[in-house]
Structure formats: structure tokens, C-alpha cells
């Protein structure tokens, strides 16, 4: 019985390991998982937004930063986490705006 338990435990751990490794392959996959499992955590949305911005998805990044600002007002978010997230999200939203303006202006 204990042998069966150990084999089952090893197999379960191997499956979980194989499933979790690909999450660490990129910033986008890492913070997508974090935001999925902690949707009320502003830091996860800020970091997902940054990852999306760096990978060229400004529209999705903007949505993530907006979501971070929305969840930052949750009562269980600690005051310093709220301030950090608000500051980071607003700063990155400005970056998104600037990038859009730069894209809109044609090169001479």
C-alpha cells in the first residue's frame, strides 16, 4: 500500500513539475499565471502589463495596468502595496500613451 502511495506521489509530482516548468519560459507566461491565480493582487497585473508592453502588446498592457489600478483599491491590499502598484501602473500607462504618440507621428 505504501509503495503504491509513493509511486502515485512521484507520478503526481512529475506531472505537476512538467506542467509548471513552461510557465517560467517567459515573463508573459509567468505573470499571466500569477494574475490568473491572484486576480485581486495589483502587483501581478502591473508585472503582466510590463511583460506585455515589452513584448509589443501595448493594448493588452494598457488593460492590465487599468486592472491593477482597479484592484489596488481592494480593502485587503496593504497601503504600501497600493501606493507602489498605483505609481507603477500610472507611470506605465503614460509610457503606453507616449509609445502610441510616437507611432502616430511619421518619420521625416
Amino acid at each position, binding site marked *: 500500500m505504501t509503495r503504491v502511495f509513493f509511486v502515485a506521489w512521484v507520478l503526481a509530482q512529475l506531472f505537476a513539475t512538467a506542467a509548471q516548468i513552461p510557465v*517560467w519560459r517567459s515573463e508573459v507566461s509567468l505573470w499571466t499565471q500569477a494574475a490568473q491565480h491572484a486576480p485581486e493582487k495589483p502587483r501581478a497585473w502591473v508585472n503582466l502589463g510590463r511583460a506585455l508592453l515589452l513584448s509589443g502588446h501595448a493594448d493588452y498592457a494598457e488593460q492590465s495596468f487599468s486592472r491593477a489600478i482597479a484592484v489596488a483599491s481592494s480593502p485587503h491590499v496593504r497601503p504600501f502595496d497600493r501606493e507602489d502598484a498605483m505609481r507603477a501602473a500610472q507611470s506605465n500607462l503614460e509610457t503606453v500613451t507616449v509609445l502610441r504618440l510616437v507611432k502616430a507621428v511619421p518619420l521625416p
Partner: protein
Amino acid sequence: MTRRWSVVALAVVVLAYLPHVVVGAWVYEDAGVVWRATSALDIRQARWPLNLISQAQWSLAPAPAVFHAVSLALHILTALFVGLFAHRLGLGAAGARLAFVAMLVPALSVEAVAYAAQQGEILGAACVILACVLALGRWWPASIVALGSGLWVQESAVAGLLLVPWTLAIFPKKSAQWLLVPCATAIGFGLWRYGGLSALVNIGEDVGVTVTWLDWWLVQSTAAARALGLLLIPIGPFTVDYDYDSVPMTVRWLAAGAWLCLPIAAVCLSRWRHRRSQVIALGLGGLFLSVLPRLIVQTPRSYLNEGQAYLMLPWFAMVMAALMRKTTP
């Protein structure tokens, strides 16, 4: 557990990590790794050996692949040390293989192995386990070197100053009792260097970034209990940034209470003269002591994460090997 199945488990783990080693990118705080690897070496910095190790890897190839491969190799090496530890504790060759596999496969190790910035955690854990192994043998003075090396590369290796004495408390070795002196001296020196216990405990705090000791104990106990739960049943969720702030206070108190049962169970089991009970006692106490420093030293911006829980794995592996031991011939 036959040698063949241990090799199969090792091969599966290596194959699982291979794609990540090849194509995994820098993530999250890996910028710190790149900075360490490309900055001029300054031996006045506290953790300069870790910088040196990073620079050696960078010189092989300035890419995450090298760091990921080295982390995987270090994880396998740590698992070998755990197997050796189990053998030295009297679990035999089969018990050693059980402990090796139980250390190798947990999904909780993925953050430490797949994330270059956590390489120090694996190094620190390897040094701590090596120190415990050496403490039980003829070369016990070398345990000081192993422990010192661990402390030099990773601050979480400070748990080794508790784990080596704990190992000697459960499996006394008369000549090695002298190791208690350098361990106690190092703890005393650390307290003096950081300005006392209060200053050390609040070292991670800042203006507007504070937490009470009780709140910190409760949330970190919850994180440690979650890590132990993931070791037992890897259903998850596994995540780089778990939302402990949304965990209800009732659950935190329950987790803290459950976590305190570990040392109590360890002390009770250690009274039995039976070898298996003593190894289980060692493992349960080791689980508690491996993260005790993080339950005391407050870093409000950062809770115990899966990578930092890496040092729990060897002690869990000991418990598993001792529990499963009777299944082996």
C-alpha cells in the same frame, strides 16, 4: 526503490527541464543576475562568491541557458547530498535512493531550478545539507567550511546554524558536539553585526512599510503551510506571487497552529529509540527550522515564495524516505 527506477526518475526530470534550459528567457528579477555577472568583482560586497559564480557562468555564454543548466545540475547535486544524508542516517541504500527521488521530483522545486535569480537558494541548500552530512562523519570539522560557504552565498543558509545542531541533537556524535560552538558564535556575531535582535527582525522594514511580529508570523506560517501542502499534494496553484493578503485570518491562525505542531511532533518522536522514528523526527524538525528565520525576520514587501521554500525539500524527503523504508527489500 531500485537503482533503475532512481535513474528513470532522474532522466524524466532532466527531460522535463531540457526545453526550458534551451529556450527559457530571463524573467522577473533576473536583471539582478545579469548585473552580478557583468559588474566588476568587489570582494567588499557580502555575497561576492555568488557574483563570482554568476560571472563564471556568464563567461561560458552570456545567455540564460547556462544559468538554467547549472541550476538543474545543482538541484541534482543537492538531491545526491540528500541521498547520502539518508544513507548516513541508517536508511540504507534503498532509503538513500528513496530520499534522492523524493528530493528530485517535487514541483515546489521548479521556481528555484527554473529561475536563475534563485540559484543562490539551491547553492545555500546544498551547502547546508552537506554540512549536516559532514557533521555525522569523521570529517565533521569540514561541516564548518560547508556551512560558512552556504552563508557566504545565500542568507537563507543561516537556517543551517539551527539545522546542524538539530541533526546532532537527534543523532548525537560526541566529537562533533564542538560544532555547537561555531554555530552559536555565528548567531551571536550576526545579532551583534546587525545591531541586535530587534534591528535584525525589522531589517526589511521601511517608512510606511511595517508589519507587526504577530501578523508576520501568521502570514509566513500560512506560506510555509502552503508549501508543505504543495509537497504533499501538488495540485497547486503554483505561482510566483501568491495572494496571501486575501487569506482570511481564521485560516492564517489554523495554518500557524498546524505549523507549530511540527516541532512538537518532532520532539515527541525523537524520544523513541527506533531509527525510523528518529529520522522522521529529524525531518519534521528540519521542516520547521529551515524556514524559521523567515518567520522571524520581517520583509513586508516579500512573503515566503516557492523558491525560498527550497530548503524544506531535503527534510521532507527524509520523512518520505523513512516512511517508505519498509517497502524496500
